[in-house]
């Protein structure tokens, strides 16, 4: 499998690069921590309201920290035209895109685990740890959706002026279904009555992921061909 080999090689490169430079990941992690603090100052999270606020706050933090971090990873590809060299080699655009989606997904998941841990510590909400195996599913599906759209858009906006400002503007309205699906599924896992299942929301996430992965694979070449 040439495709898989190429893809994994790029993922490996991204992860190595990230662990040496720690640029995107540190932006994401510190921003998520900062946002949690800001949220606490704005809404005053107490033990009475933490259960009802948790899912919403977490997903807003994921979306904002995520999109800024993803902007950074594609910026470093753009900076010295590094991605062009990859595309001039035998690597196909599709495997390049998939690799970028996977490495962004890994960074997102790392940031999310960190955010959840910080949330547990800052707001004494241990239920997040106990339900973590169930939470992992919407987390994975939602982050995949973020990564699929975020990767595409980050390449698109870094090619323009004021890219950093435009990126959230393009990204946030489009991922509204992911936000709704992720928040609702998380909320049911945390607060739902015993019989309640988040299945319907996971379906929304799966539909979004499949639809946008398919379309993005077709469209990605129109962004990088120059």
């Amino acid at each position: 499998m040439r495709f898989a080999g190429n893809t994994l090689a790029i993922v490996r490169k991204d992860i190595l690069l990230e662990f040496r430079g720690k640029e995107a990941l540190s932006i994401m992690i510190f921003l998520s921590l900062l946002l949690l603090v800001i949220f606490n100052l704005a809404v005053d999270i107490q033990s009475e309201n933490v259960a009802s606020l948790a899912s919403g706050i977490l997903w807003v933090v994921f979306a904002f920290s995520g999109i800024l971090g993803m902007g950074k990873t594609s910026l470093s590809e753009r900076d010295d035209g590094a991605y062009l060299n990859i595309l001039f080699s035998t690597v196909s655009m599709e495997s390049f895109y998939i690799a970028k989606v996977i490495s962004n997904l890994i960074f997102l998941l790392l940031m999310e685990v960190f955010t959840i841990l910080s949330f547990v510590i800052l707001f004494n909400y241990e239920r997040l740890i106990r339900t973590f195996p169930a939470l992992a599913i919407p987390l994975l599906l939602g982050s995949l959706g973020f990564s699929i759209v975020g990767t595409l858009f980050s390449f698109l906006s870094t090619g323009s002026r004021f890219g950093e400002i435009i990126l959230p503007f393009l990204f946030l309205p489009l991922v509204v279904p992911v936000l709704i699906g992720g928040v609702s599924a998380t909320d049911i896992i945390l607060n739902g009555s015993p019989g309640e299942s988040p299945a319907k929301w996971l379906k929304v996430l799966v539909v979004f992921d499949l639809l946008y992965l398919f379309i993005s694979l077709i469209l990605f070449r129109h962004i990088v061909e120059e």
Partner: protein
Amino acid sequence: MKSGKIIRGIILLLAILLPASFYLIFQVAPSEKIMGDVQRIFYLHISLAMSAYLGFGLLFVSSILFLVKKTLYWDTLAFSAGEVGLLFSTLVLITGSLWARPVWNVWWTWDPRLVTMLILWFIYIGYFMLRKAIPERMKRARYSAIIGILGFLDVPVVRLATKWWRSIHPRLAREGGGLDPLMVKVMLFSLVTFLIFTSLLIYIRFRVAWAEERINEIFNDVEDYNG
């Protein structure tokens, strides 16, 4: 100038249809029993909403055609349709709000249709922001075509998600049910009128934009020749 004649014909036709549809809406259509005259705004509101979707739909199709054919003709049509769509969706949000205040007693409610229109509105604001930010003509066309395609595909997904999302919250009861046959006729008349009006606006916007496009091309050619 055959197309010029057709356009003049359509403008003439609209000069009759538009006042006629306003006459029908305000004079002929019966007054709604519970909501009263406020309900008349709905003839406009629905027509505007369909017109907005016509604009965004055309933007979607032209964006695909641009990526296939790579000629600026389709990009010009795409953003012309998008501008008209954005204008009408703004009016939809405003007329909807004006209607909701007396009837639902709120300016805004998080109903699936409202949310879908609002999200769409934001997506196309982003579309035009991106266009402003990219000076290179072909790149601008390519990038915005991608937003045009992805944005429109979001409509059914947002609609589905917001519908389910609302269903766990209290829902505002929808009035209506059996519409008076006369109301249906007035509705259809104003809908058709507005769709023709929208198409005309898009066409005229396109003609202007396309002329600009060609003038720019000539300027560039002259500059290349001199420089």
